[in-house]
């Protein structure tokens, strides 16, 4: 039965083959790649043409060369940052979705706890980040915590909206089936809220990168944020931009991972969009 219920929420088996979809993505990637190529060419040409000095804006060839030249170094630091992003994001996801449900379900929580969460959310984490160093030191923890804090709220708000959006009448159905709270959550509320939740997760994963980077800015000896600061301290513009590229690639990979997961978990939406 376990396998079966799994299948009910994750009907991946009925999705089109992975190979087919990968091919689809590659085709889809052609357009943005072309746009990028154009962008980079214009940039390469415009910077010398407009006499923009290198310490203000490097040309793409300069930082792409740096990226190749220092790839081993950059790769190591990228791994560190990716790990922080992943951990913080996962923590936020795992905590905020059930919490969102709880808050929506329990009147008292909505009244008493939610405003406090909102308040603490409204305290700009970036501003208290330096205190994190004093409180928690330099390890992995303060970065993951910061990432977590930045991811937490978007997912929470999105899942709350999602859980609220459910047509209440659907609950007649589960109630008449004698569903437990957990079953209703798992079989009805989560899938129904999923498109909202993913909208939140897509925002979250973007802010996760910011969280990790700021965490590294504030105190670290590894990671892309650290490398970026090193670049800044030597005014090494190509290194700065190489780091930004690496960071963006990490962001894109995570972002696509979330979108892939969305397609996998919500086959009913996928079918809808590509029909006709």
């Amino acid at each position: 039965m376990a396998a079966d219920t799994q299948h009910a929420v994750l009907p991946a088996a009925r999705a089109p083959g992975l190979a087919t979809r990968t091919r689809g993505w590659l085709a889809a990637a052609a357009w943005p790649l072309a746009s990028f190529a154009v962008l980079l060419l214009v940039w390469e040409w415009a910077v010398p043409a407009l006499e923009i000095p290198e310490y203000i804006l490097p040309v793409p060839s300069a930082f792409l060369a740096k990226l190749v030249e220092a790839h081993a170094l950059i790769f190591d630091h990228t791994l560190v940052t990716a790990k922080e992003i992943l951990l913080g994001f996962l923590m936020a996801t795992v905590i905020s979705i059930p919490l969102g449900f709880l808050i929506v379900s329990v009147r008292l929580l909505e009244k008493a706890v939610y405003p406090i969460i909102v308040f603490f959310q409204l305290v700009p984490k970036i501003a208290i980040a330096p205190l994190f160093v004093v409180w928690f030191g330099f390890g992995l923890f303060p970065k993951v915590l910061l990432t977590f804090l930045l991811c937490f709220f978007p997912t929470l708000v999105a899942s709350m909206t999602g859980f609220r959006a459910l047509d209440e009448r659907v609950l007649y159905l589960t109630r008449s089936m004698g569903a437990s709270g957990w079953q209703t959550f798992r079989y009805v509320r989560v899938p129904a809220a999923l498109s909202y939740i993913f909208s939140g997760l897509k925002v979250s994963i973007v802010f996760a990168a910011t969280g990790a980077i700021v965490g590294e800015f504030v105190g670290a000896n590894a990671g892309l944020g650290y490398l970026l600061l090193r670049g800044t301290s030597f005014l090494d513009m190509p290194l700065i931009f190489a780091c930004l590229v690496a960071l963006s690639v990490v962001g894109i990979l995570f972002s696509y991972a979330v979108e892939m997961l969305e397609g996998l978990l919500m086959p009913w939406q996928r079918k809808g969009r590509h029909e006709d």
Partner: protein
Amino acid sequence: MNAPMSDIAKAADAASIEGRQIVKTFGGFTAVDNVSFTIGKGEFVSLIGPSGCGKSTLMLIAAGLQPLSTGEIVVNGAPLDRPLTDIGIVFQDHLLLDFRTALDNVLLQAEIRGLPMEPARARAMELFEKLGIAHAADRYPRQLSGGMRQRVSIARALIHNPSVLMMDEPFGALDAITRTQIRHDLELLWMETGKTVLFITHSLEEAIGLSDRVLVMSPSPGRIVDEIRIELPRPRPAHLGDYPSFNIYADRIHALFRQFGVIKY
């Protein structure tokens, strides 16, 4: 559905349902006004009345799904304070889950109730076969026609063989012909299994063709204004006009509706 289902509930398992002076208001608006009724164990009772008179509301209350403003529901002699669960419900608007295929919508019953999945799947397909939607088992609700959605919802109400059935205009979106067929099938199923049934319909043919008793409601605020015991032999034929008493029952209801001002001819 005319074949006996694999495991048949005894009439003894069925429940009696009683409503006592039920009032339901929405804000200042009274939807159901002081309604009392009883449905005996294994009895088939229909509810008929003009649109908006409170039939669906009353059914939800009887199933323990909507809070009532005053009054109470008594099931097997005990006041009902939670949703009835040994029940299959066909809701008026189907309430299929968009994110599950037709088959998975039906199997939700089995999953939530923790029934063994393989037999449930087999039975679901059996029901789909009978309802003529087996080919669409893997489609999502969006991809189904109106009538197909309704059939899925009927299959979902039957798959776990509950001892109480509540159906809110279950055959509304079916074609007239299938409707007669499925009405016949439901009657046979009921005769075999002795379920307690609350059946909401707009159709005199369905009400008279299926019920032991028909409750007639007035326009909003809904009250029960008549109760008609249908004394026809079972199973009843497709062409009810064959019974002279059919017209007597039908005319009685017609007269009421004319009195409500719902019909002018």
